[in-house]
């Protein structure tokens, strides 16, 4: 049975070295590039001729964009709409990476199953929150760490906890996405291995893990979408802290 971790292996395609850093173009880079091309095609075709009564592609783009704008309007308010393009970019990147990683037969790779990439995404959100927070509120942004009505004698403890939880956000954001993607792909690979090993014993036995894998594929597609949604939702909730300070 193939090692279920093998699918996550980074393979160098074009070796590249700059200033002692290994910047090689790898399979991860390739699939991120494919994602970029797919998203570009989607967005450029969808917005080629924006019309009041949208065509199919424009309606599809609008559906996703409206989804993000509604999420921001609900969680942040009117001021949050300024950040809709950035949150949309994060959302569509995660969604496309997750979904394209599910394409079978083409040796596809899921960049979002790697913590380096998800951490990069999480840092974008984190840095955005910090910049927006300080830009809008200056040093008053620190009051985020002291919820209103905290009794004075527990204030240091509360502030410490709040500060820690604030700092841990990029990590939880990164690990949640990476772990979900990794676990799902490992599970599919494991059951795929079962199909072969049990099928070799008896063809009828192989059907059972195959059926499980069919169900898992549907589940993974759901998780691919849900995790992109969760990532964007948490990003907008964190953004709300920066814009409105609780």
């Amino acid at each position, binding site marked *: 049975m193939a090692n279920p971790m093998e699918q996550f292996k980074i393979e160098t395609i074009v070796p590249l070295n700059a200033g002692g850093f290994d910047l090689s173009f790898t399979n991860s*880079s390739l699939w991120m590039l494919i994602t970029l091309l797919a998203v570009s095609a989607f967005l450029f075709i969808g917005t080629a001729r924006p019309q009041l009564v949208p065509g199919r592609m424009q309606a599809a783009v609008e559906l996703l964009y409206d989804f993000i704008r509604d999420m921001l309007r609900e969680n942040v308010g009117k001021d949050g709409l300024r950040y*809709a393009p950035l949150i949309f970019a994060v959302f569509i990147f995660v969604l496309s990476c997750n979904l394209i990683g599910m394409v079978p037969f083409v040796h596809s790779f899921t960049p979002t199953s790697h913590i380096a990439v998800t951490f990069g995404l999480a840092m974008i959100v984190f840095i955005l929150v910090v910049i927006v927070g300080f830009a809008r509120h200056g040093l008053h942004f620190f009051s985020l760490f002291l919820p209103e009505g905290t009794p004075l004698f527990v204030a240091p403890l509360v502030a410490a906890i709040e500060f820690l939880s604030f700092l841990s956000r990029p990590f939880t954001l990164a690990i949640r996405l990476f772990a979900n993607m990794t676990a799902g792909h490992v599970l599919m690979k494991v059951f795929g291995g079962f199909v072969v090993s049990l099928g070799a014993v008896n063809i009828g036995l192989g059907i059972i893990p195959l059926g499980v894998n069919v169900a898992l594929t549907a589940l993974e597609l759901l998780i691919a979408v849900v995790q992109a949604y969760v990532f964007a939702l948490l990003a907008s909730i964190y953004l709300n802290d920066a814009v409105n300070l609780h």
Partner: protein
Amino acid sequence: MPQFDPASFVSQLFWFGVIFTLLYFAVVRPTLPKVGKVIDAREAQVGSDLDRAEAAKGAADTLRADHETAMKAARDAAQAAVAQARETAAKASDTQLKALGARLDADAEAAAASLELALGSARAGLETTVAELTSEAVAKLVGIEITPADVSAAIAAR
């Protein structure tokens, strides 16, 4: 797990940075705001259309109310006119009937009077005729000459 191999971190982060920067600045920023503008324009259009429809509905409602009051007034006027006409007609026929009745009564009275007159003259004629006949019959049968005046006096005396 290849995910925790730090050797690939720099390359992954570098390419992620490059591709996400491209995605945001070269793809999302030039395209998405166009759709956002269209969505806002559509919302504004739909809002103004709804407002216009609301105003038109209000105008239609007032028109219908006006029409209804006008219809009601016209109906009332027509009913009043009909009632009036009926009343005048009834009054006119009443007077006519009364006049006709009076004329008929007068005619009947006149007829009765002339009948009485005719009856009186007929009776008088009858009496003279009877007296003459009687006097002639007496003259022929008995041979006594008596005048009709005597006969009349004799009849009146009985």
